[in-house]
C-alpha cells in the first residue's frame, strides 16, 4: 500500500487535461488524501503540450514531489519530456505506439503500456471526448479508486448542466477504461491506494481562497482586467459578489481597474483589484496615487514569469522589487506574502484591516503556483471576521469637530477619514502635494511635514504586521529563508535533508515590507549558514534581506528561474553540495 503518490496526466492543450486532472484531484481528496496539484500549461488554447500532476499523500504535504509514479498521456511527446521524472517501477500509459522511440536506458525499471484511449472513445462512443473518462477508468484500475466516489463526482459535475444521459455515458466510459486497463496492466504493477475518511477539508486554489477571503473581509467593490494567473479571482467574485450586495467591474485595462477601485474606496467601500506581470506595471501610477492620497486599497498580484509577456501561465517570484521599490516617489506600502492556501484566505482579511487602519495600499503578493493550483486544507469553518475600518469618522463624530482636516498632523500619522456625502467633512483628495485639508501646497515646510506624516504610518503599522514563521528544528544551524510558494518545496527539501542526516530550520517571511529586521536578524544570528530560496534570477529576496541586515557572507542564494516552481531536490541537493565544500 502506498502512502504518497504522484500522478501526471499529459496531452495537448484542448485535450481536457485540466478538467480530467481536476476530477482526479477531487476523487483523491474525497478518498481522504492530502492533495497538491501542479498545472503546467502553455499560454495557448489548443495544440501545445500541457500536463497536470496530482500529488496525493496520507501525510501533510505542502508541495509537489520530485518524481512521478503514474503517467497517463494522450500522446507521446509528454512522455519524452517527462520520462526523466518517472520513478522506478513507475507506470506509463500512453495513447500511441511511439513508445518504441524511447531509448532502452529510459525504459529500464519503468513499466510501459499502450492504452488506446482515443481509439476506444471513437469506437465505443463515436466521440473522442470520452477519452478523458477512459483515462480516469484506467487510473481507477491502477490506483484502485472508489467507484462510488467517482460516480458521485461525475454526477455532480454533469447532471445539472448536461443531464442524465451524459452522466450515464461518462460513467460507462470510466467502466470501459477500467476493464481495458485490466487487460494490459498486471496486478503487481498497480499502485493501490487505501481510503481514509475525508473529514472536514477543502480543496481549493489560492485564487479562490483569496476571493473568498475578500468576500468575508467585507470587500464589496472589485475592479480588474482579465489576466492570467489572477483571472480566477475575478471570476469567482463575479459569480458571488452580486449575491452579497457587492459589485465587480471588468475594466478596460489595469489603469482603470486600480483607479476605479481607488474611487470606490475613497467613497467608503472596501475595494480590491487583482493582476499579474504587465498589469502590475500599468498599476504603478495608481499605486503611487493611493500612497499620496492615503486611500486604503488591496491589490492582489499573482506573479507569473516575466519580463514582458514572459511565460504567462507559469510561476515565478520576480516582482518583489517592483512593489517594494516600484512606482514614483516615496510612500508607505505594506506587502504580504502568503505561503499556504489558508494564509491566502487569512492574509486577505488582514490586508483589508491593515489598509483601513494605515490608510495605505496593501499588496498581497502570491504566485501562479498558489493562484491556480489546488491544495487540500482543513475547512476554514465559520470565521467571525473582525472588520476594522480604522479611523473612520461617523457623521456624529464629524459634526463635533470644529475644523475638520482630512490630513491632520497626528502622532501616529493616521488622520481620521470623512467620506463624501458627510456633513462638515468637505475636503480635497489631491494627487499633488497638499496641506492638511487636501489642498495643493508646494511649500517646503508643508512638504516635509506631510512626507513625514505619511511615512510615520509604516512605523505605526510595524507592531501590527504578520511576523515570520519558523519551521523545523530550532537548534539547527543550517537556516533556509523563503517566502510565498517556495514553502512547499522547502518543506519537502527539509524532509529530504533530515533523511540524509542534515537538520535545518526555515524562516518563512510573511511580510515583505516594511521589513521586520529584528526577527530576521535573530534568525540569521542563530544560524551558521543561510540559504535564501528565490524563484527568480536575481535573488530578489536575498537582496532585500541583504539591504536590511548585516550578514552578507553567511548568505547564499538557491535560485530557479526556469518557469517552474523550484523542485525540492534542487534545494536539498544544493545544500548537501554546499556543506561538502
Amino acid at each position: 500500500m502506498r502512502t504518497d503518490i504522484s500522478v501526471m496526466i499529459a496531452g495537448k492543450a484542448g485535450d481536457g487535461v485540466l478538467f480530467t486532472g481536476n476530477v482526479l484531484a477531487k476523487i483523491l481528496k474525497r478518498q481522504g488524501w492530502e492533495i497538491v496539484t501542479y498545472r503546467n500549461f502553455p499560454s495557448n488554447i489548443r495544440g501545445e503540450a500541457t500536463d497536470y500532476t496530482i500529488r496525493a499523500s496520507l501525510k501533510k504535504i505542502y508541495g509537489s514531489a520530485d518524481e512521478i509514479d503514474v503517467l497517463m498521456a494522450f500522446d507521446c511527446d509528454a512522455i519524452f519530456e517527462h520520462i526523466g521524472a518517472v520513478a522506478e517501477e513507475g507506470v506509463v500509459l500512453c495513447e500511441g505506439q511511439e513508445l518504441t522511440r524511447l531509448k532502452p536506458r529510459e525504459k529500464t525499471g519503468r513499466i510501459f503500456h499502450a492504452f488506446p484511449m482515443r481509439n476506444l472513445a471513437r469506437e465505443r462512443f463515436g466521440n473522442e471526448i470520452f477519452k478523458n473518462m477512459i483515462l480516469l477508468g484506467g487510473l481507477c484500475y491502477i490506483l484502485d479508486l472508489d467507484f462510488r466516489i467517482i460516480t458521485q463526482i461525475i454526477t455532480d459535475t454533469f447532471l445539472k448542466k448536461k443531464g442524465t444521459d451524459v452522466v450515464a455515458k461518462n460513467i460507462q466510459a470510466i467502466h470501459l477504461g477500467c476493464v481495458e486497463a485490466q487487460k494490459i496492466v498486471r496486478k503487481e504493477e498497480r499502485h493501490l491506494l487505501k481510503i481514509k475518511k475525508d473529514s472536514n477539508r477543502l480543496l481549493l486554489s489560492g485564487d479562490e481562497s483569496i476571493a473568498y477571503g475578500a468576500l468575508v473581509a467585507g470587500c464589496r467593490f472589485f475592479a480588474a482586467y482579465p489576466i492570467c494567473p489572477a483571472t480566477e479571482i475575478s471570476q469567482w467574485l463575479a459569480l458571488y459578489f452580486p449575491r452579497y450586495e457587492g459589485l465587480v467591474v471588468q475594466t478596460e485595462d489595469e489603469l482603470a481597474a486600480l483607479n476605479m477601485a481607488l474611487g470606490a474606496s475613497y467613497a467608503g467601500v472596501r475595494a480590491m483589484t487583482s493582476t499579474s506581470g504587465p498589469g502590475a506595471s500599468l498599476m504603478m501610477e495608481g499605486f503611487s496615487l493611493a500612497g499620496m492620497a492615503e486611500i486604503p486599497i488591496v491589490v492582489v498580484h499573482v506573479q507569473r514569469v516575466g519580463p514582458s509577456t514572459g511565460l504567462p501561465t507559469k510561476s515565478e517570484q520576480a516582482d518583489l522589487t517592483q512593489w517594494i521599490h516600484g512606482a514614483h516617489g516615496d510612500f508607505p506600502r505594506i506587502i504580504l506574502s502568503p505561503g499556504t492556501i489558508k494564509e491566502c484566505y487569512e492574509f486577505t482579511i488582514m490586508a483589508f484591516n491593515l489598509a483601513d487602519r494605515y490608510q495605505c495600499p496593501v499588496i498581497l503578493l502570491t504566485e501562479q503556483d498558489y493562484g491556480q493550483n489546488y491544495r487540500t486544507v482543513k475547512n476554514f469553518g465559520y470565521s467571525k471576521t473582525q472588520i476594522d475600518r480604522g479611523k473612520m469618522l461617523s457623521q456624529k463624530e464629524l459634526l463635533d469637530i470644529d475644523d475638520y482636516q482630512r490630513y491632520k498632523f497626528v502622532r501616529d500619522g493616521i488622520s481620521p477619514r470623512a467620506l463624501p456625502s458627510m456633513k462638515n467633512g468637505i475636503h480635497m483628495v489631491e494627487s499633488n502635494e497638499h496641506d492638511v485639508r487636501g489642498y495643493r501646497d508646494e511649500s517646503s515646510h508643508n512638504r516635509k511635514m506631510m512626507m513625514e506624516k505619511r511615512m510615520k504610518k509604516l512605523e505605526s503599522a510595524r507592531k501590527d504586521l504578520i511576523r515570520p514563521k519558523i519551521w523545523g528544528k530550532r537548534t539547527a544551524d543550517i537556516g533556509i529563508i523563503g517566502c510565498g510558494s517556495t514553502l512547499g518545496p522547502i518543506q519537502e527539501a527539509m524532509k529530504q535533508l533530515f533523511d540524509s542526516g542534515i537538520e535545518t530550520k526555515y524562516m518563512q517571511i510573511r511580510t515583505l515590507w516594511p521589513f521586520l529586521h529584528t526577527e530576521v536578524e535573530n534568525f540569521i544570528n542563530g544560524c551558521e549558514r543561510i540559504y535564501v530560496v528565490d524563484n527568480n534570477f536575481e535573488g530578489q529576496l536575498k537582496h532585500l534581506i541583504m539591504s536590511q541586515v548585516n550578514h552578507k557572507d553567511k548568505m547564499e542564494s538557491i535560485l530557479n528561474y526556469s518557469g517552474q516552481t523550484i523542485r525540492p531536490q534542487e534545494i536539498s541537493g544544493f545544500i548537501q553540495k554546499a556543506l561538502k565544500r
Partner: protein
Amino acid sequence: MKKKDYHLHDPTWCLGCGIYGVFSSLKATALSLRMKPEEIVIVTGIGCHGRLNNYFRSYGFHSLHGRALPVATGVKLANVRLSVITVSGDGDAYSIGLSHFIHAVRRNVDLTYIVINNMIFALTQGQTSPTSRMGVISVSMPFGSKELPLDGPRLAFASGGTFIARGFSGTPKQLRHLFEQGLRHKGFSLIDVLSPCVTHNKINTYDWYRKNTYDIGQKQGYDPENRHMAEQVLKGEEKMALGLLYKEERPSYEDLLLPGKKPLLQSRLTIDRKEQERILKKFE
C-alpha cells in the same frame, strides 16, 4: 443656498481664461439644482482645469492625468446618491485618458463629464493636443501638426453616448443650461466645452470660436433625439454646432448593476455562519 456657498476661493487662472466661464456656470447650475456641497464630488484630472477643486466648494478628488473617469466611476458606483461631476481637459479626456472616455460612454455610468477643450496643452506651456487643428504650429510640433484632430462629441456618438452636448465658455448662459440638463440626465452626459486659452493658443480665440460655431437652436426643426439628424450635425460641417446635439434614454450602468439603487456603501459587510458554511461546501 447661495452661489457663494459653492465658492471656496477666487481662482487664479489667467485673466480671460475660458475656465472662468465653466466655473461660474457650474456654480450657477449647482444653485439652480439646489445641490448640497457635501453631496457633490468633483473629480478632475491633470491640466489647468484641475485647479477647479481648489475653488469650488464640494468634495473633490484631483486624480492622475487621464484617470478622472475611472476614479469618478468608482465613486459613483460606491455611492449612487452622490452627484459626481468629472472635469477634464482635452489632453486628459481625448489623449491620455481616451480609452477610459470611450468605455465610460459605452457603460453609460451616471456621470456628468465636462471636457474643457482649449485645443492645446496649456499647463505644460502650449504643446499640441489631440484636438489641435492640422497644421497648427506649437512648441512640441514646430513644423505643424500632421495629425487629424479628434472630435470628442463625434466619438461619444459612435461609442453609444446618451447625452452629447457642446458648449462654449463665451456663452455661459447656454453652458449653464447644458450643465443642468447633463446633471439631470440619467446616464453618461458629455459636455465638450470650447474654451479659449488666452496665453498659449493665439489661433482658437473667443473671436475664432464665435466665427466657427453656431447655435443648434437656429437649425430649424432640429431634434436631438433624432439619431439621423444628430449624425449629420456631428459629421463635422464647416462650423461646429453648440447646444444639446444628441440625447437618448437608455438604462444607466447603475440601473443595470444595482437593483433598487441601494448604495454599495450600505451593503451588509458580514457573511453569517450559515452562508459561510454554504459557500465553503462548494470546495469540499
